[in-house]
């Protein structure tokens, strides 16, 4: 399958700070591709180069066969972008905004249908300034799609939305992909990346740390399983640390947390049974994308910040 977006050795610096050091990845047609990383990792700069809003210092970018910077006029016809912190005039009505923006494109989508799809039909006459945060965000998505783009780049799609609105938006994005649009999603929500993305590029300090499916990233971790339980009697750690399947044992209050490979659960429960120790409230967790994130970037992730 040919790549819709191809980024090779992208480098971009502002004055003396390097925003993007060396980033390469490619996105296949019809994919939902996530760009994930801590604050200041260079996510937004990367997508701004893809959108043709910034010229790379070095490296090449091809989007739908176009050079985003040199062929920006053509690219804007085929790529829809939703930016962070981008408002509309407060007194512009929803319907007016959609109608206006659709007039910019050669082959616009039916803006009324789009308004319907995004649940804004009853807000057609409402001014932008009077919309809730979630409604403004949905209008923003609608405007990114109004030119019926082949590629949509969505930056911090659900930041500032309540959990319900966030889930609704995810469903919507899956619907958009089902219509054949390739989607690049910049996010810092692990849950969002896990739920939506086919593949994720993990970016840290201007470099790509890993590119894989969310599950693949998590599986790549050493710690395959995390097992938690309480015991009826105090536990001698040596009992478990001696097992080859176990990598660590720690205590959180009276909860024992054991990490180990994929066979750890079997080994731990057998060892406990042999010693007649009853494990209560036993929980097993597979390593998540979040664990992969922490392991690969060496950073704890702050869910409330935006980059």
């Amino acid at each position, binding site marked *: 399958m040919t790549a819709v977006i191809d980024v090779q050795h992208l480098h971009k610096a502002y004055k003396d700070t390097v925003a993007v050091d060396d980033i390469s990845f490619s996105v296949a047609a019809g994919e939902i591709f996530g760009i994930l990383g801590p604050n200041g990792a260079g996510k937004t700069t990367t997508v701004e180069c893809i959108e043709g809003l910034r010229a790379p210092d070095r490296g090449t970018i091809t989007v739908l066969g176009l050079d985003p910077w040199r062929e920006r*006029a053509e690219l*804007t016809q085929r790529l829809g972008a939703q930016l962070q912190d*981008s*408002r*509309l*005039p407060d*007194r512009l009505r929803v319907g007016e905004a959609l109608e*206006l923006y659709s*007039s910019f494109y050669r082959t616009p989508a039916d803006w009324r249908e789009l308004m319907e799809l995004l649940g804004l039909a009853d807000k057609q006459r409402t001014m932008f300034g009077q919309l809730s945060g979630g409604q403004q965000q949905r209008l923003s998505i609608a405007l990114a799609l109004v030119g019926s783009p082949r590629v949509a780049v969505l930056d911090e799609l659900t930041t500032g939305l309540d959990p319900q609105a966030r889930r609704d938006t995810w469903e919507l994005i899956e619907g958009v992909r089902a219509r054949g649009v390739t989607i690049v999603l910049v996010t810092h929500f692990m849950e969002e990346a896990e739920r939506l993305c086919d593949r994720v590029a993990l970016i840290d300090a201007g470099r790509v740390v890993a590119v894989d499916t969310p599950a693949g990233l998590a599986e790549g971790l050493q710690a395959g399983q995390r097992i938690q339980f309480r015991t009826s009697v105090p536990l001698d750690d040596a009992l478990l640390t001696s097992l080859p399947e176990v990598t660590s044992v720690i205590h959180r209050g009276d909860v024992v947390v054991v990490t180990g490979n994929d066979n750890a659960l079997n080994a731990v429960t057998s060892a406990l049974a042999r010693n007649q120790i009853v494990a209560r409230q036993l929980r097993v967790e597979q390593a998540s994308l979040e664990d992969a994130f922490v392991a690969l970037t060496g950073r704890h992730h702050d869910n409330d910040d935006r980059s």
Partner: protein
Amino acid sequence: MSATAVPAARRPAIVRLALTELRLFARERARFVARLGLPIVLLVIFGSIPFYTQARRSLHGHSLFQAYVPILIAYSLAIISLTALPMVLADYRDKGVLRRLQTTPAGASRVIGAQLLAYLAVVAVTVVLILAVARIGYGMFLPRQVAGFIVAALLAAGALICVGLLIAAVSPTAQAAQAIGTVLFFPLMFFAGLFFPIPVMPSFLRHLSHATPLGAAVQALQDAWLGHWPHPLQLLTLAAYLVACGLAAARLFRWK
């Protein structure tokens, strides 16, 4: 569907942008009334005071009122172009409205061109209003060199709007745009003869005045009003401001 009218969807984007801008302008009701209404209020005040309406030998038999009508036109031009326009445009930049437009095929020239069109329309409405009130309310004669008046008014409006676009381009924030516009407004209005008419200025100030956009505008409008074709130098001055500021604004225009 009727085949007679051009479907709304076929209207060029620049026209739609300009119409949207006009709509937004009209929705700012308080400001809308202040900007369009203040020159009319001043006109009514001047027209109601005999001091202004009596014919004067020093003004070649015309009244101060007659001398003030072109100045009030310049005043509305300045208010609209130097305070309203730069603030609105810089505010769009602050809020990311322009940034969003940058991701669409609209393009900078269309966005700037639409502003120019929209504000030309606002200015045209204001000028017609002032003319109507002066004519109907106070029996003032209409400009006698109609073509000259229209040319002068268009050039003046174009020049002032381009100065406004330039202010918007160089201002880092909406507040800065407003500050620059306001600071420029008073000296420019001084040279337009708001405080005392250009003909009674000392010659050095008069020459300086002719080199400013509003001074040139008032002279050109006044000449046309009295039946003469405006002096080419004044039209050239206005055209020079239009081209120079317009080009600089387009060049310095920033989306973000």
